[in-house]
């Protein structure tokens, strides 16, 4: 199978899947909001918000399925929560309590890696290691646009291609590496670069969780079917600064920031599913109530 462009994917998801996508996006958004608040109050030392990237994260994480092993970067909070990381486990490392607040083995969601791109080689090595032992070798690794400049990312793509490793690379291209725009980080795209190494790839917009889900489902099928790597580059928006220490107003125009906020994947998907009657106010209230409880527990633990 060759990956097709986004528009060629029919998004014929069932309503259960759609609600699941939205639910995970809402949970991620609310927990992220709470974490930002906790950080401002001094309860967390640092927070790297995933706001604006929820559709990409939830769509991809749901598509790859629970049997996959995920090697995250450090901003995949929506993936973490979907995978079963509890909110208080998620923030523990940003509160300075531990280097990893959850059980990586049980959740098959490995610790965040703060040295950029180092995890890409681990992911490929892990997949090869699993295959050699006759175990499940499907691995998903997340990486940012900026991190792809590190030599390790290229080495990992070459290794995955040569070994035909069952690795799905997901690059969330949020347009920025702190203050460096992605256009100045590369001449082409991460997707084109992957093809240069012999890895099938596709580049898609990351506003709509359904198309992300569809593309990542097919990419998953490709990796599993061909036992060959694949890369999906998802264009997303970063709502806030790189981290809570970063004032993006210094290097990013007010219009650009405003534009980002307008294209909010969470509110857009709420509106869409509401419009389609897939969710209603009652359902949304239930989710918000569920989230409220999670937030309260988080606040009790940290504030």
């Amino acid at each position, binding site marked *: 199978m060759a990956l097709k462009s986004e528009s060629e994917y029919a998004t014929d998801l069932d309503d259960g899947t759609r609600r699941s996508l939205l639910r995970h996006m809402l949970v991620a958004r609310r927990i992220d909001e709470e974490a930002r608040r906790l950080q401002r109050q001094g309860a967390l030392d640092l927070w790297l918000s995933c706001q604006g990237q929820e559709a990409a994260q939830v769509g991809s994480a749901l598509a790859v399925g629970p049997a996959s092993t995920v090697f995250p970067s450090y901003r995949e909070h929506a993936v973490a929560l979907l995978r079963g990381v509890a909110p208080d486990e998620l923030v523990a490392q940003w509160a*300075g309590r531990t280097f990893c607040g959850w059980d990586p083995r049980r959740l098959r969601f490995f610790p965040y890696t703060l*040295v*950029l791109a180092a995890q890409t080689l681990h992911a490929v090595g892990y997949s090869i290691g699993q295959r050699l032992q006759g175990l499940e070798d499907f691995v998903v690794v997340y990486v940012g646009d900026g991190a792809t400049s590190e030599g390790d990312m290229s080495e990992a793509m070459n290794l995955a291609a040569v070994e035909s490793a069952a690795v799905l690379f997901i690059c969330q291209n949020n347009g920025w590496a*702190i203050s460096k725009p992605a256009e100045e980080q590369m001449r082409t795209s991460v997707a084109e670069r992957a093809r240069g190494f012999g890895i099938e790839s596709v580049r898609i917009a990351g506003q709509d969780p359904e198309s992300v889900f569809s593309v990542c489902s097919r990419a998953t099928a490709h990796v599993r079917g061909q036992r060959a790597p694949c890369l999906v580059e998802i264009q997303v928006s970063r709502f806030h600064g790189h981290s809570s220490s970063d004032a993006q107003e210094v290097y990013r125009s007010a219009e650009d920031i405003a534009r980002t906020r307008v294209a909010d994947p969470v509110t857009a998907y709420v509106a869409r599913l509401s419009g389609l009657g897939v969710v209603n106010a009652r359902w949304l209230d239930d989710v918000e109530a569920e989230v409220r409880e999670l937030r309260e527990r988080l606040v009790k633990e940290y504030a």
Partner: protein
Amino acid sequence: MATVRSAGLAESINATLADLLEQDPRLLLLGEDIGRLGGVFRVTRGLRERFGEDRVRDSLLAESTIIGQAVGMAMSGLVPVCEIQFDAFTFPAVNQLVTQAARIGGRWNGQASPGLVVRIPTGGGFRGVEHHSESNEALFARFPGISVACPSTGEDADQILRYAVTLGSPVLMYEPIRLYWRRDAVARDPEPARSPTAARVVRRGADLTVVTYGAITHEVLEAAHALACDVDVEVVDLRWVAPIDMATVLDSVRRTGRLLVVHEGSRDVGIGAEIAASVAEHAFDALRGPVRRLAPARRAYPPADFEKDYMVGVQEIKDEVLVMTK
């Protein structure tokens, strides 16, 4: 305890860089986020606006690229002053630094003398997340062809930078993150260092020599002042850990007869080991007791909640001095 107000380290380095850029057209800055943002610590703030994006260059996100590219630029006659965002992120550039930058001079039979400076924010004590609080200066101090500076004040950083850009071989300057904005400091002996590369006796004393460098020099001075009634501590601020000004250290130990080395980087096979070993060799007869080192044990810098246990504080320094002199 007399404290003095001074410019923060960040402000001081910013002014020096501006001045150097002004004076020498061959100089340029290169690093992640140093331009538009002015650096994650804002040390280079305003410089891109003032000197343009050609000379204050937002590099690609790749440390090997930063140093490898700087080596090439240096060969072309420029003097790149690089910034690595945090100490731990120097590791992807170790190969370019150790096997390339440090060896160009020798490989070219002295015909090339790359002017190349790397500024590295270092050290802990600000509740940083994993990899953001390390002190790895001792790694590079081993390697020939690289000089390693560890200023503890803005004035020292200024003097070091001005010297480094003229040296013709790579210099790493470790800048303590927790001094970037600190404005008050324990007063120091006014006598300046003998040369840009010399250590400096920042407090004269008769009973015991503490050799130290970098941010923790401030804690050492604080401890020395606090103990002043009981023990007269001499404090040597190395300023450079490669090469080390052993003459100043030996001279001090010969006067006091006792040596304590204090540093923030971990103890084993560290700068303190080198100092202690050299003193135990060259000033053995002057020693009135065991040489001692006070530095974190050989374990990873812990999560923020535990950094207090990891780091050496004023109290430990005082305790150690008292044990050694009682």
